């Protein structure tokens, strides 16, 4: 199914949307299609929002982000659309429901496990624990019935819809990822509707060659999108490296609003789909980013 169709069918205004990938395997292609379809009032969640959330904020598709940071392209600087939104209300004021990295991971884990909360030994005493009071996903404390200690607990997050970008999946949706996964397995399994975008569609037999790499089963996948290079400008282990130059330039190219509008037109609204985006990126860059093969990790599965 093309990404366009998957987003049309499965992502609707006002929903809470999960995006997979932590640094590696980020679902940029899906985020851009959501912008092109001009969704509104989405809540969006991701362990580290980064420039993907900066773009969703700048394009006005989200008014509420649930994440642990919204950095710029290559370092711990605030991204400019985030700042414009929160400091000046451009294009709209959003709610930044700030989490800590491990707190949001545990919330996804609780969603994954089908339990309403999980304890975590951090957050108490910080502003993250106290703010923002009005928007739901706030930690609390309970008394441990075994040790008597008061401990922080974080609530489950079960997004309405989620999307991930993986290295390979079969046509039914059994999807595999290796390398840096971050929160992807727990987050996507916590979702009610699921889109799997994949670098490659492979035969089921390939999936069965290393079944520990499967992060989600076909029985709950609603759409499989064959989307090579869907994670650019992030990396995809075994496929392509992070486009550091592009990310570095992003900060400069989005610092003032006119430049941001040009950036959005050039890379998102001015192209039809990921194939169009890759044309703008150009073959030279694509060849430069392609991963050199390091084929390894076979073991004996015999019995």
């Amino acid at each position, binding site marked *: 199914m093309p990404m366009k169709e998957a987003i049309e069918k499965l992502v609707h205004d006002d929903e809470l949307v999960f995006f997979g990938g*932590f640094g590696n395997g980020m679902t940029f292609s899906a985020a851009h299609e959501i912008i092109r379809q001009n969704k509104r009032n989405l809540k969006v969640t991701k362990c580290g929002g980064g420039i993907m959330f900066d773009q969703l904020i700048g394009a006005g598709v989200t008014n509420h982000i649930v994440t*642990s*940071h919204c*950095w710029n392209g290559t*370092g*711990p600087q605030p991204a400019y659309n985030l700042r414009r939104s929160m400091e000046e209300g451009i294009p709209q004021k959003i709610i930044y429901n700030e989490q800590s990295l491990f707190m949001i991971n545990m919330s996804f884990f609780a969603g994954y496990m089908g339990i309403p909360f999980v304890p975590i030994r951090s957050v108490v005493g*910080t*502003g993250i624990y106290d703010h923002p009071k009005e928007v739901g996903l706030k930690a609390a404390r309970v008394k441990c019935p075994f040790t008597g200690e008061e401990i*922080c607990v974080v609530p489950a997050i079960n997004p309405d819809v989620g999307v991930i970008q993986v290295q390979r999946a079969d046509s039914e949706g059994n999807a595999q990822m290796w390398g840096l996964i971050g929160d992807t397995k727990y987050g996507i399994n916590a979702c009610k509707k699921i889109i799997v975008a994949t670098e490659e569609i492979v035969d089921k037999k390939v999936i069965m060659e290393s079944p520990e790499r499967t992060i989600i089963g076909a029985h709950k996948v609603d759409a499989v999108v064959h989307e090579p290079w869907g994670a650019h400008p992030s990396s995809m282990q075994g496929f392509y490296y992070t486009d*550091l130059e592009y990310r570095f330039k992003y900060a400069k190219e989005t610092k003032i609003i006119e430049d941001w509008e040009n950036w959005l037109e050039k890379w998102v609204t001015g192209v039809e789909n990921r194939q169009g985006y890759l044309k703008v990126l150009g073959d030279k860059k694509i060849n430069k980013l392609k991963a050199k093969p390091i084929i390894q990790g076979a073991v004996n599965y015999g019995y």
Partner: protein
Amino acid sequence: MGIEEEKYCTEYTGFEMMLVSACRQIKNDDIVFNAFHWPFLAVHMAKLLHCPDLFAVLEVGQFQDELPRPIKMPYSISDPVLVPNSLFVGDSIDALSILQRGEITIALLSTSMVDKYGNCNTTVVGPYEEPIYRLPGGGGATEIAGMAKRLIWLIDDHIKRRLPEKLDFITDPGYLEGFNSRIKAGYPPDTGPEVIVTPFCIMKFDPESKEAYLDALHPNISIEQVKENTGWELKIAKEVKQIDPPTLKEIEVCRQTMRDAIDQYFILKPEWTTYL
């Protein structure tokens, strides 16, 4: 000059001194939580200098006890170069488990602002809902600050607004409101900030009040200079120590590390601090 003195470097920046001084805090048998940005550089330097066996844990659940060969500075914790150069790759919850089980003996964190109780703010200047400057948010630093045994703060500019008396927002917990407030909030008693390293000095924390005080000076820095540029009435150790300048070897490794970082698009001029 005598031979002894010759091994020290005489020209270096405050930023370099901060990195060297931070790097010296790490021991070869530490289990370090290797967090992004300046700590990456200090840990990298330690590995090349005096900690060949250092065991490092990263936020996406990696273990490393060797640098990638050929030596390459990862551009971030999620650099794919880390995967085939790690002894373990898991998920973020695996990394958290190591923190929560109390296995991390040291962590370094670089940050925007640290207050006198060692709390940090990377969230917001001004009110949370109506920010003057919205900062990016903390990521995993909240848990690292909460659960590493020895926490080393790096502040790359020793100025009042980076070292205020009180923060608008605590992103990462230090000693909260001082005294036993950190323990009362539930953090393990054997954890907490140990030092703040700046281009000027090293601060430590009073065992009772948990307030940061001046412990040791970097070369050619005066007590007055430190006091004037700190946002609270800084207390001074009875005997302020003098820190050695970088050795030639240290500065060589430091500068090569910085060049490696520039190659990986590290933003070495921290221009974002000018927003503060």
